């Protein structure tokens, strides 16, 4: 298409030539007819016609294609220029590619994590509603059925109010042997209407309103596209077939479209089935089921007004609660956009901070490229002057130089996109463990659009200024021999100096941020964790929850498993814990309500079950009392161990925490006659949720004492369990052996995820580590670029002043004087840049304050160290040009005059 058009343009061009030739021929013929001789007639005709080339040019312009022709001409010329000086081209392209690559990588992450909408239509109308009591340590809970039923009938703000609850424990879909773990959610009948997404296959879940009677609809199920493809090989006849979830039969009623998932951050295959209401839902008591609520606002209704309406309704609804505790916990309503929970605020802030850092690096790269192109424009002064002298307009010269800029930045964008993808690949593990979504390595449409914008802006930033300067340079001095040493260069040097100063200042900011994060990592690494991390393998067990109702998990599964593993060669110890420290797999919180009579205040506490030998694996330190031992069995008196934070929160006497020993804490069994657990030991605090977070209260119970009759049996044993094994053997040997033991214990366990405690600790440094690693790369690149920029400028200055140096030597200057001259020039630039950079860093490091640990955002040592690094780098960059200046041979320099 394009080519044929160009060919036609060529046709038309020759047609115009012929037309004008005919005009001249006819004019000449007429003059001959009037009696002029052939030669005079022709000359006369030409004179009358005027400048034929210009007429053709003006006529062609009326075709409207000339710009394209010129653009192609400019592109060809620019490509020739690049080929002719590959070193220069490589420097500019490399510089810009670094900047564009970093910015593209960060933009890809931000786009995927922060800008991508949820996979539902009009996601901003979806809100998450919960009940609770505002205040210091506000806890927000799910909503009992009666409350949300009241909202449904009385509220006018919502199009749909849907609710859901996760299936207890882990769920497995498929047969009895080859079953796959899935995310299984029970949903209200209007759930998919609220999300406004229908199935791609089948009718979907029945729409009948919820009822308390058991109906046939209860055993229908809808599968996610992933579940359908991976487990049922995309069987198009799946609808109506029977499948098994946790050994229960369900009839498939539909398959959701590809890309749909709920909850939004689920990676696993998913399934949804109708939620069954029970007798418990007909009353409002502290033990009635709490549902998660997702509601869709009516179009045009603001979140704040919907929230206000619900809070007014809730004031009346809450009067129906008989239990005063339950009433106060349901006194207020909280509402948030469903998308707000997507990414934690701190992660979002960190990502924006990193994006800013990447953009800063990109800006530095652009400044560096500008500097290079300015030097280039000086070197090509004669060429530009020549073109102007031959009649090229300023705009024409500018246009040509900008096209060159586009070619350079376009090439850089191609390389930069590759570098960006490589960067994401490099950080894939870290990104995956800290972000709710997988970040794609390949470019998508918005990122491509961003890349194009970056490319265009880079070209304009880097090329526009040099082009303007080049096109406005006076022609005459440029044409004279040796014109490059004319007076323009002084202002020019000052300009390039300013650019180098800007580069140094911006680099210092990046280096400062990087330095602060490295200090943070250092501080985090030296936080006493309160347990040993070396030589521990951790397996997060994939427990088939549904089987646990039929066995005593501890005596039938866990104890034999521990026994077997402890007797394997090279194993120093093995223990179980519902969640290892920093594990982030499962968290259970227990509220112990205090009252005036007992003198205890209300305590929110972590609640875990452990096996007695766990202490030897992790080396937990006891402050007082003892840990569990083999004598604590199902038949002996129930005992619990608490940590220091719990004791501090619970003890009536802060001076003597050990007074909590012997206190009766909670009933582990069911029924009135069961005994409360007695506190037998206080553990020294250890880090539970993250390295940077101080310990919170924790209660531990002994696994053998949690029997199927206990109210805590399923939650403590049937959902999450981490196996921790201490061994000196290499991982490659120990892990397969442990896996074999797990498979022997129960086939599902073989799929358990295994890692080491060291890796868990490393992962828990979390986004700080990720940010630090990325900033190391960004700041390193920035430092490299500004050293290159400074070196480039000084080398240029020295080459321009060769003759001046010669004169200085001839007049008796010493080598040291000349070196000093160059170093002084470099020193002025670096010191100004560093001073400016310190101010910039002081202002901007505040933005990463929430990311720092154990170091202030204005840490003087870090800033001083960073300034020193830049000064030293500046000295290195200045040394070579200074030495070259000192080696100028005065005789040769002057002879060249």
């Amino acid at each position: 298409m394009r080519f044929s058009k160009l060919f036609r343009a060529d046709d038309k061009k020759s047609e115009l030539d012929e037309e004008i030739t005919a005009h001249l021929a006819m004019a000449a013929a007429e003059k001959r007819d009037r009696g002029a001789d052939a030669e005079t007639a022709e000359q006369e005709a030409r004179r009358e016609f005027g400048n034929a080339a210009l007429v053709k040019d003006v006529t062609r312009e009326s075709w409207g294609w000339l710009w394209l022709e010129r653009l192609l001409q400019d592109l060809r010329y620019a490509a020739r220029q690049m080929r002719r000086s590959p070193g220069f081209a490589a420097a500019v392209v490399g510089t810009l590619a670094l900047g564009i690559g970093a910015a593209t990588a960060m933009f890809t992450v931000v786009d995927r994590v922060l800008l991508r909408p949820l996979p539902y239509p009009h996601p901003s109308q979806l809100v998450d509603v919960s009940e609770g009591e505002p205040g210091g340590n506000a806890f927000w809970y799910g909503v009992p059925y009666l409350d949300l039923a009241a909202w449904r009938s009385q509220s006018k703000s919502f199009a749909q109010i849907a609710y859901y609850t996760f299936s207890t424990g882990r769920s497995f879909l498929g047969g009895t042997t080859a079953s796959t773990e899935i995310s299984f959610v029970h949903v209200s009948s209007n759930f998919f209407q609220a999300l406004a997404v229908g199935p791609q296959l089948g009718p979907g879940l029945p729409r009948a309103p919820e009822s308390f009677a058991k109906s046939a609809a209860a055993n229908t199920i809808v599968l996610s596209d992933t579940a359908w493809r991976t487990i049922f090989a995309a069987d198009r006849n799946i609808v109506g077939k029977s499948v098994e979830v946790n050994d229960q039969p369900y009839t498939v009623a539909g398959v959701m479209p590809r890309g749909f998932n709920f909850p939004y951050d689920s990676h696993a295959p998913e399934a949804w089935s109708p939620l069954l209401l029970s007798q418990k839902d007909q009353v409002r008591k502290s033990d009635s089921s709490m549902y998660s609520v997702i509601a869709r606002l009516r179009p045009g209704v603001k979140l704040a007004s919907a929230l206000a309406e619900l809070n007014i309704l809730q004031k009346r609804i809450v009067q129906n609660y008989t239990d005063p505790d339950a009433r106060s916990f349901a006194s207020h309503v909280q509402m948030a956009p469903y998308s707000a929970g997507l990414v934690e605020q701190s992660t979002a802030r960190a990502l924006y901070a990193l994006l800013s850092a990447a953009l800063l690096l990109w800006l530095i790269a652009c400044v560096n490229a500008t500097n290079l192109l300015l030097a280039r424009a000086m070197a090509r002064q004669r060429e530009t002057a020549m073109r102007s002298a031959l009649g090229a307009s300023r705009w024409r010269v500018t246009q040509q130089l900008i096209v060159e800029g586009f070619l350079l930045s376009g090439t850089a964008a191609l390389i930069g996109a590759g570098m960006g993808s490589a960067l994401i690949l490099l950080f894939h593990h870290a990104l995956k463990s800290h972000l709710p979504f997988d970040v794609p390595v390949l470019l998508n449409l918005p990122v491509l659009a961003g890349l194009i914008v970056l490319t265009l802006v880079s070209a304009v930033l880097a090329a526009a200024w040099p082009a303007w300067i080049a096109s406005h340079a006076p022609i005459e001095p440029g044409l004279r021999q040796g014109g490059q040493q004319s007076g323009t260069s002084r202002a020019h040097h000052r300009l390039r100096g300013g650019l180098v100063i800007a580069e140094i200042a911006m680099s210092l900011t990046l280096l400062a941020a990087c330095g602060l994060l490295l200090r943070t990592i250092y501080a985090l690494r030296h936080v006493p964790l309160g347990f040993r991390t070396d030589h521990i393998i951790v397996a997060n067990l994939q427990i088939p929850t549904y089987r646990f109702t039929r066995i005593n998990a501890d005596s039938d599964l866990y104890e034999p498993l521990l026994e077997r593993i402890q007797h394997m060669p090279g194993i120093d110890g093995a223990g179980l814990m519902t969640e290892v420290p920093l594990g982030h797999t499962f968290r259970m919180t227990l509220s112990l309500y205090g009252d005036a009579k007992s003198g205890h205040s209300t305590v929110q506490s972590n609640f875990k079950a452990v096996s007695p030998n766990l202490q030897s694996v992790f080396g937990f330190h006891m402050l007082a009392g003892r840990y569990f031992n083999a004598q604590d069995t199902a038949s002996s008196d129930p005992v619990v161990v608490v940590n220091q934070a719990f004791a501090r929160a619970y003890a009536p006497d802060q001076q003597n925490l050990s007074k909590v020993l012997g206190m009766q804490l909670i009933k582990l069994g069911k029924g009135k006659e069961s005994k409360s657990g007695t506190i037998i030991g206080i553990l020294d605090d250890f880090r539970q949720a993250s390295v940077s977070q101080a310990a919170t209260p924790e209660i531990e119970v002994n696994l053998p004492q949690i029997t199927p009759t206990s109210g805590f049996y399923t939650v403590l044993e049937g959902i999450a369990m981490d196996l921790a094994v201490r061994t000196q053997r290499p991982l490659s040997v120990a892990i397969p052996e442990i896996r074999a033991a797990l498979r022997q214990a129960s086939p599902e366990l073989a799929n358990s995820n295994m890692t080491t405690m060291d890796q868990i600790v490393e992962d828990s440094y979390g986004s700080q580590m990720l940010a630090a690693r990325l900033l190391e790369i960004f700041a390193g690149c920035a430092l490299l670029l500004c050293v290159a920029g400074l070196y480039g400028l000084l080398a240029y200055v020295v080459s321009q002043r060769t003759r001046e140096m010669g004169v200085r030597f001839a007049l008796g200057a010493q080598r040291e004087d000349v070196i000093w001259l160059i170093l002084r020039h470099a020193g002025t630039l670096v010191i100004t840049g560093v001073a400016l950079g310190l101010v910039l860093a002081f202002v901007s490091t505040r933005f990463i304050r929430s990311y720092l640990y154990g170091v202030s955002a204005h840490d003087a040592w870090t800033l001083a160290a960073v300034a020193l690094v830049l000064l030293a780098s500046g000295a290195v960059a200045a040394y070579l040009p200074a030495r070259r200046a000192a080696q100028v041979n005065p005789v040769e320099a002057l002879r060249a005059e």
Partner: protein
Amino acid sequence: MAQREDYRNKIELLQGTLDLLILETLRWGAQHGYAISQAIRARSGEILQVETGSLYPALHRMERQKWIASEWRTTDQNQRAKFYKLTKEGRKQLALGRTKWEAMVGAIGGVLNPQMEN
């Protein structure tokens, strides 16, 4: 450079009028560029000299606007030349231009010779 800007100025100055003159010339039959310029010159009593730098862009532009169409023919002197002729659209433009021009002449005449109104 300066020269080219002059050309542009003249095109602008003459734009409406030059189009009108060319269209009127073509009303008498298809003509090539040289003949058009000669005809305008002759009929204006040698006063209007159409610059080639205005004529050819105007011809090419009007051809794109489909006011005129072109074809290659041989002249009586056996010279191959590009002949332009009026199209239907061109005739409409000519009528329109003529009305406008006459209104303009009348209006300017009225301003320059106010006593004639009485």
